């Protein structure tokens, strides 16, 4: 007896769903094609609104994070600990990293605050200020940096440094007024200055003259506000007594199973926790960027949710009108013994059909069209190249949310009509 109850219940529900499906399918088949198309179109726009608006807002920050990781930090970055001048035991860290599983490239950078002075040869009036820009003079191993960040790909004017040459410098574009004037007075920058021009670089008490070899263009501050020289030139300029560096950027092989967190843990386990600040790219992202990302995601979701409310009202109205105009037939069906649940299920299936088709088209547009499009042609913002961020899990959650809301928007008006007195419905009272 007790076993029969759930069996009967499941049989009853299977009949309800079977009749609901039968009625819904025929109603959709018999409905006006342009109305069906319009409802599906609205559902598609709702889904795109839900996914794309927040995706682009988040993508503005994410684009910056991706660029930061690609052009600057790698997957893990070791920097100087607070209160220290450099990363201790740099050589040992380098040797450990070279042997470490999953590590693809490392780039060791030597950094010192300094100044770049331009146009000093044409400065006749010494009462006028020098044409100076503060910068971080960065000494790099060209091959290592190229392998890690592909920095030469970002050269906008001239060319990048060469390991076999000396006395050349590559300037980040925001050190030049012609590039940075859009930012107002945020950066001190120098006038003119093209590849082939000479600039004076001062670090501490040392000053050296360099020939500008190229201008590197990037939206990552650690590239666009730095001046790059070879490691050898840097060491000559700075009079460094040791070979301890200031940054070690680490790129993990994308095919390896090792994660950034794993690499960080390996470095800590190897005993380098007190030699430098070891961070994953995510941890190295400035906190304000994370806050902006959260705020943008929230804003996008609010806009998306407003869209969902509008879509659910649309579905509500469509189903309500459909149910009201078919009230007599609903009454007849109840009259001949069709259960209320089966009739309600038929309306729920109809609303889900609209949301499902609209959502699937939206998914297709998102992943086949929009994501590849924004990857190829990112939105050009001053601080980042905005991409469309649409993680599969989150997007499917939003798809599910749309289906759920639509289900309710279909059920409520259907329930309101179905629960009315059977005879009143049949007689249209």
């Amino acid at each position, binding site marked *: 007896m007790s076993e029969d109850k759930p069996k009967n219940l499941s049989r009853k529900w299977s009949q309800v769903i079977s009749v609901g499906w*039968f009625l819904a399918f025929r109603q959709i088949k018999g409905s006006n094609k342009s109305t069906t198309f319009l409802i599906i179109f609205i559902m598609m726009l709702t889904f795109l609104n839900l996914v794309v608006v927040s995706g682009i807002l988040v993508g503005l920050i994410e684009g910056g994070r991706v660029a930061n990781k690609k052009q600057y930090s790698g997957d893990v970055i070791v920097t100087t600990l607070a209160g220290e001048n450099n990363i201790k035991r740099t050589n040992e860290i380098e040797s450990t990293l070279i042997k470490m599983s999953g590590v693809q490239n490392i780039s060791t950078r030597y950094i010192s605050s300094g100044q770049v002075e331009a146009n000093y040869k044409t400065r006749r009036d010494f009462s006028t200020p020098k044409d100076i820009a503060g910068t971080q003079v960065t000494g790099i191993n060209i091959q290592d940096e190229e392998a890690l960040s592909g920095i030469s790909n970002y050269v906008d004017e001239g060319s990048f440094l060469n390991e076999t040459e000396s006395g050349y410098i590559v300037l980040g574009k925001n050190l030049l007024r012609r590039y940075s004037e859009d930012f107002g007075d945020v950066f001190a920058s120098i006038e003119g200055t093209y590849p082939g021009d000479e600039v004076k670089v001062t670090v501490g008490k040392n000053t050296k003259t360099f020939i500008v070899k190229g201008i590197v263009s990037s939206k990552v501050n650690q590239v666009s506000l730095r001046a790059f020289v070879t490691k050898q030139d840097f060491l000559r300029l700075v009079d460094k007594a040791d070979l301890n560096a200031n940054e070690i950027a680490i790129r993990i092989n994308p095919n390896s199973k090792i994660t950034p967190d794993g690499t960080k843990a390996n470095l800590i386990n190897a005993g380098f926790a007190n030699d430098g600040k070891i961070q994953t790219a995510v941890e190295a992202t400035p906190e304000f960027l994370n806050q902006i990302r959260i705020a943008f995601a929230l804003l996008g979701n609010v806009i998306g949710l407003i869209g969902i409310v509008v879509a659910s009202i649309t579905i509500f109205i469509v189903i309500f009108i459909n149910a009201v105009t078919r009230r007599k*037939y609903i009454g*007849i069906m109840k009259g*001949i*013994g069709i259960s209320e649940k089966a009739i309600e299920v038929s309306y729920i299936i109809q609303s889900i059909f609209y949301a499902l088709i609209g959502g699937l088209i939206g998914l297709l547009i998102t992943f086949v069209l929009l994501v590849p499009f924004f990857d190829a042609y990112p939105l050009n913002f001053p601080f980042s190249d905005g991409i469309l961020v649409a993680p599969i899990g989150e997007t499917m959650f939003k798809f599910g949310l749309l289906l759920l809301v639509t289900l309710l928007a279909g059920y409520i008006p259907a329930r309101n009509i179905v629960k009315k007195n*059977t*005879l009143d419905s*049949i007689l249209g009272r």
Partner: protein
Amino acid sequence: MIKVKNLTKTYKTKDIETPVLRGIDLNVAPGEFLGIMGKSGAGKSTLMYQIGLLDHPTSGEIILNSKNTEQMSTEERTQMRLSELGYVFQDYALIPELTAVENVMIPLLMKGFSKSESCDISIKMLERIGLSHRVDNKPGQLSGGEQQRVSIARAMAHNPKILFADEPTANLDTISGYSIIQLFKELHDKGQTIVMVTHEEEYAKYCDRIIYLEDGKIVREVKQK
């Protein structure tokens, strides 16, 4: 089969109460063909709707197949309508977007028959009433008489114990009307219990018994067989 005791029905609006049935007592035997007649507004259809469980009476008892219907839940009443009762309405009451065979299939699907079983039974039912050539036509493509036949096929497909018909010939021409009544007679001859509301004497003569209503009361009863 049907026992009605002191049945009343009063329609109430804000300030007005309109009594439509005023204490009806009625018994219908298994296999009987009962006709309900009376002038417009006499309460014929209202009585049928109460007995057919499409509405709740204001007071009184309706006992169908030994079950007191007023003690049943909404779900039980729906289940009883599905398994034991069949309905033929004056305006056919077919679902417009469904074909003839699909209209007949719905109650069968609800009863738990598979789609193919329902379809087979429905086609046989439509063949039985001479509509084998119309199975895939939608109601809008059928004449009034054909629609009413589909409606009868739908009412009969699940072998109901009682068939209720509310002026089934009212919207039909004479020939179609007669063909419908002939169909009812055939069903009755095979033992089907039928309760039919009609205002047409020439069709009522096929009934075993006719009750006449006036102002919500049975004023006359005529046994014909």
